[in-house]
């Protein structure tokens, strides 16, 4: 029982990372109907920015804040410069552009920062808590994620710009008629997604160690979490991400050798999706003839 609870908690910590990335994916999907394959490499790049700052003796939380701002601006710039030209192109062209962006960011990071593993500091000491049920680090990751989700909720629910962004995502044409600058809202959405990714990257870097391929595995889990929750539902993305984290951990502990845990976890989730093809919290797409 102790082992079981331990696995659940460490699964939740991993799941918090997947949930953040899933949320970033959902934000972009809702706004532009596009799965951003470069999301995780954007997060990786942000983490390198934080790493440079920390190495330059900037205090941890200051480096954290600066990284979020830089990532936000970087995300907006990517939307304006890289994604904009294929805004009205076929979906596959946009998908290929995000794959290209993934390759560019990954190669650039390798070129600038080399492929060696780098240690990344954690503000949370790695101490056991509650009779070794979880560590302070896991608790810290979960707490930071929760704070971030709370802030996002407040932003979308109670601010004018949050409302404008929701309007732009839901119905761009009507939003534009109401005087909302839809293009700018899309850019802000990309900026926010990049900042969310940066948070997740900084949280996961002390555990995985930093290298250009750090987030490669995370992309699939985040994507799975987003779809399990329903690609149109932010709440679903968070819950989906947590479920994926816990499932992955439990499968690895109880079911099968860890080489196949990814495969088995994916099969389980696909089976769930066969019965709920729009995810747990997603809405079915209704089409007219």
């Amino acid at each position, binding site marked *: 029982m102790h082992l079981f609870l331990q696995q659940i908690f460490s699964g939740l910590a991993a799941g918090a990372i997947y949930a953040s990335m899933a949320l970033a994916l959902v934000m972009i999907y809702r706004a532009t109907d596009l799965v951003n394959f470069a999301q995780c490499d954007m997060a990786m790049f942000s983490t390198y920015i934080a790493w440079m700052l920390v190495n330059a003796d900037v205090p941890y939380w200051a480096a954290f804040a600066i990284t979020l701002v830089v990532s936000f601006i970087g995300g907006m710039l990517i939307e304006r410069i890289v994604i904009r030209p294929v805004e009205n192109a076929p979906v596959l062209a946009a998908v290929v*552009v995000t794959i290209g962006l993934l390759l560019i960011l990954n*190669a650039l990071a390798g070129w600038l920062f080399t492929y060696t593993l780098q240690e990344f500091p954690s503000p949370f000491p790695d101490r056991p808590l509650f009779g070794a049920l979880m560590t302070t680090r896991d608790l810290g990751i979960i707490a930071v994620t929760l704070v971030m989700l709370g802030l996002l909720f407040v932003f979308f629910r109670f601010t004018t710009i949050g409302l404008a962004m929701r309007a732009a995502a839901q119905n761009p044409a009507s939003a534009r008629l109401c005087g909302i600058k839809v293009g700018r809202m899309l850019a802000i959405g990309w900026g926010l997604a990049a900042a969310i990714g940066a948070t997740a990257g900084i949280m996961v870097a002390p555990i995985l160690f930093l290298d250009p391929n750090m987030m490669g595995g995370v992309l699939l889990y985040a994507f799975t979490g987003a779809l399990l929750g329903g690609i149109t539902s932010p709440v679903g993305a968070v819950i989906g991400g947590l479920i994926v984290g816990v499932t992955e951990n439990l499968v690895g502990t109880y079911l099968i050798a860890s080489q196949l845990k990814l495969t088995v976890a994916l099969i389980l989730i696909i089976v769930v*999706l066969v019965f709920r093809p729009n995810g747990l919290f997603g809405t079915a797409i209704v089409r007219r003839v």
Partner: protein
Amino acid sequence: MNDSAAAIATEKLAIGGIAGLRVDTWRRLGIAALIVLAAALPFGLSNYHVFELTLVMIYAIAVLGLNILTGYNGQISLGHGGFFAAGAYAAAILMHRYGVPYWATLPAAAFVGFALGVLFGLPALRFEGPYLALVTLAMAVATPQTLKYFSWTGGQQGIHLAKAMPPPGLPIDRDRWLYFFVLVVLLIAIRVAANMLNGRTGRAWMAIRDHSIAAAAMGIHTARYKTLAFGTSTLFTAVAGALSAIVVGFVAPESFSLFLSLSFLVGSAVGGIATIGGAILGGFFIEFVPNFANDISDAAPWAIYGLAMLLFMYAMPRGVVGSVGPLVAWLRARTRRSAAGEQVLSNSTSAK
């Protein structure tokens, strides 16, 4: 040539077209010239370049399979690397374990590809858009892990294969023989794909892609045709995989990573997803652009590759053939119109 045939030929020459020839005729001539060029090419190139071109054709077959599914039926797949691997391993295991001659593994790989595709296509019926992308992506990621896990796939080390030799008595070497072997398979694949796509099946696939509800209302069995599209698509890709195992002489789990699946998708998008000719251009892109990027920048070749993808998509969001195709269609329509006009003219003169 008898007189009437000659008369028809001259009449055809006389009406419309570019330089007195119809666009259709030009197209046929172009295709014939390409085939002649493809047949002549290996004699003027080094062995390594012949090998590279052989790989281009193999990728072209794989991308053609993906085009059938994504371009003509609207189902996205990020997992065709998995079916490519299935074909490659089917061929490798048959050759290595059961001593089957290499050419005989192709039908087996085709069968494996079709069966897996249909099995996979059945649950895929429930998924659309990003959900199908996830399910196929999951397959692409799981492929190398699964191949490593089992011992009959050779595990981590993979399987080394005996070299496929040209039939005794033929005065060409191995690389050129395999080039022609793959060329013949490519031509058959293109012919089969063109026949399916221009016929009833192709029309049904495209109707489903464009509007599945309307297609169902017209009496198209949507589920059956979508599953068939999946099976046909994976059949092509698995055959390409088998060819790659024969040509490279080696299969290992790491060759079939997610990156391979994404490469197919990129090749498909660059060439033009709903085209046949685009598949060949896609093959060239997959094989040569990474090398080319390596020549430009040793430090970050993949950044150059990514940049090339971006630029291609900005310049031609519908792919090369997808963007040139409308131009050809316009030319053809124009020459038809002028042909029809001249027909009317000649009729009126003969009536006098």
